């Protein structure tokens, strides 16, 4: 049985580090960024004193500073991530919602599984350091390590181990969550709601986990001389990275429209794109388009009115519909509204994969059109020639709101 979490329980759902940050004076009086900064300054002060007192080599001082910055950055990430994970609104229904609440409860479980994992990591690291294997302690502090210094090394090691544990815990649970959400939603026969916003929020959260890996990179030079630590951190980063990417890819493949509307978007050759200039003049034209399962793409001429409008105002409306020639009321339509993004030459370097993906989608969807354009290229006005990124500009639309209709209303007249 899944326990339904109420508001008061939600406020108790916190990670050990959050509780420390919120309850230890003077840090508890500070907002997260200043809180972490204050801790960092305190640690720096402590480090300077210790290193001056024990005459530590300059290289180790530098390593310690790098380590402290990384830990501070992780702390900041953790303090940002926790409230986001708690607050994320996922408008899913039924089993999916129950599962997500359960997943969230594990994430912030009162038994603090993340802390236990941190302790396991800590024991592994200290066990290795103190058993005489490896040379890191000697490499950092020379042959005679003073017990006071060792104490602070162990405190710092625990900080690192705890943050690594949180990263593993969060990204592992995220992957598990995405696998099951996909299964649950795919198993639904009817879909009376659109889980688009929920899925997008989850994808954005998973991106946080990738930043954990990026933040960890400066640590590598400080542990490079020890193979055990280097490989260990690599494996950890790899786990977090792979599970975050897999989780995002899985979420991208979750069907988020009712099956018939999905088919409509995938199978329609035409769409209507609505834009509006800075003077609130709307403009609507038919367009060919492509759909990658999440976002919509269209290509337009560099001199077109809609491109000018989008440069003025990135908000667009995108309608796809299907008409039944035998019964005019029997139509189906879906309207996406959202922000658009224009791809330019610079994106060849910045987003080559996106451009390749869009090109592939258009090539497979409109082979006939593209052949004709190529055959008649010389007769065409410049703006219609298919020179990618120069005369034909790629525009991507990220939906924010989706409305769909089935069947038009008959007209009732008073005469």
């Amino acid at each position: 049985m899944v326990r339904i979490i109420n508001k008061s329980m939600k406020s108790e759902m916190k990670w050990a580090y959050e509780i420390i940050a919120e309850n230890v004076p003077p840090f508890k009086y500070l907002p997260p960024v200043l809180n972490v900064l204050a801790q960092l300054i305190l640690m720096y002060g402590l480090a300077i004193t210790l290193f001056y007192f024990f005459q530590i080599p300059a290289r180790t001082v530098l390593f310690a500073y790098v380590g402290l910055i990384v830990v501070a950055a992780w702390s900041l990430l953790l303090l940002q991530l926790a409230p986001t994970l708690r607050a994320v609104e996922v408008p899913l229904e039924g089993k999916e919602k129950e599962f997500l609440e359960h997943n969230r409860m594990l994430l912030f479980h009162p038994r603090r599984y993340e802390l236990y994992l941190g302790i396991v990591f800590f024991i592994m690291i200290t066990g290795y350091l103190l058993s005489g294997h490896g040379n890191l302690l000697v490499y950092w502090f020379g042959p005679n390590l003073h017990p006071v210094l060792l104490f602070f090394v162990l405190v710092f090691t625990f900080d690192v181990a705890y943050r690594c544990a949180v990263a593993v815990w969060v990204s592992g649970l995220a992957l598990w969550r995405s696998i099951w959400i996909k299964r649950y939603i795919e198993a639904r026969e009817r879909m009376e709601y659109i889980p688009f916003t929920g899925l997008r929020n989850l994808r954005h959260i998973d991106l946080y986990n990738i930043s954990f890996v990026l933040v960890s990179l400066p640590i590598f030079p400080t542990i490079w001389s020890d193979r055990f630590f280097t490989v260990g951190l690599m494996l950890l980063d790899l786990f977090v990275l792979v599970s975050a990417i897999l989780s995002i890819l899985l979420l991208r493949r979750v069907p988020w429209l009712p099956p018939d509307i999905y088919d409509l978007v995938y199978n329609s050759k035409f769409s209507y794109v609505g834009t509006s200039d800075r003077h609130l003049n709307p403009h609507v034209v038919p367009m060919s388009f492509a759909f990658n399962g999440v976002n919509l793409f269209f290509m337009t001429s560099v001199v077109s009115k809609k491109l000018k409008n989008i440069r003025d105002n990135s908000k667009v409306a995108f309608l796809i519909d299907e008409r039944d020639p035998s019964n005019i009321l029997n139509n189906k339509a879906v309207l996406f509204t959202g922000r658009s993004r224009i791809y330019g030459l610079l994106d060849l370097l910045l987003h080559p994969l996106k451009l390749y993906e869009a090109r592939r989608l258009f090539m497979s969807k409109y082979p006939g059109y593209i052949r004709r354009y190529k055959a008649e290229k010389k007769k065409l006005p410049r703006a219609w020639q298919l020179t990618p990124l120069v005369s034909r500009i790629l525009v991507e639309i990220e939906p924010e709101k989706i409305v769909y209709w089935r069947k038009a209303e008959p007209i009732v007249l008073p005469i």
Partner: protein
Amino acid sequence: MIMIPERMHCMLTQSLIGYLCTADTRNQPHITPIFVIYDPDTYRMYLQTSRSSKKVKDITVNPKVSLTVDNRDPINPFKNEGVLIRGDAEVLELDLEKAISGEDDIPPDVKIAFDIFKSKFSEVVSKGKPSEKVVVRINIRQMVYWRGPKFHTVNI
């Protein structure tokens, strides 16, 4: 006298479904498929819709609209043709309920529009109480006709 190419009239008169684009004060465009009613003598278009619909809300705060009708050729893009309209829309102060009972007069141009409705969409028009419905009139300012890459613009 404005010269409007025959093909423009033809498309506007014959097309059943058009795509109406409105924008709210936050400048968010919105598109809805509508039944096309075009009066070639006055260059006006009409539609009947719910008072609570998004397009009526948009038109009340921003009367500028755009509307497209088109013929699609799935094989040859050079045969795609369409008409794009820019104009100003107004929600008519016409109480359809009172119009039935004869309490309110229906303006002559709206009567013509209703006649076009009846003849063009005979199979979907029914007589009855159009509750919570309003009539919207679009005064056309500009029409653009295209076929393949060729464009023709007429200002009214």
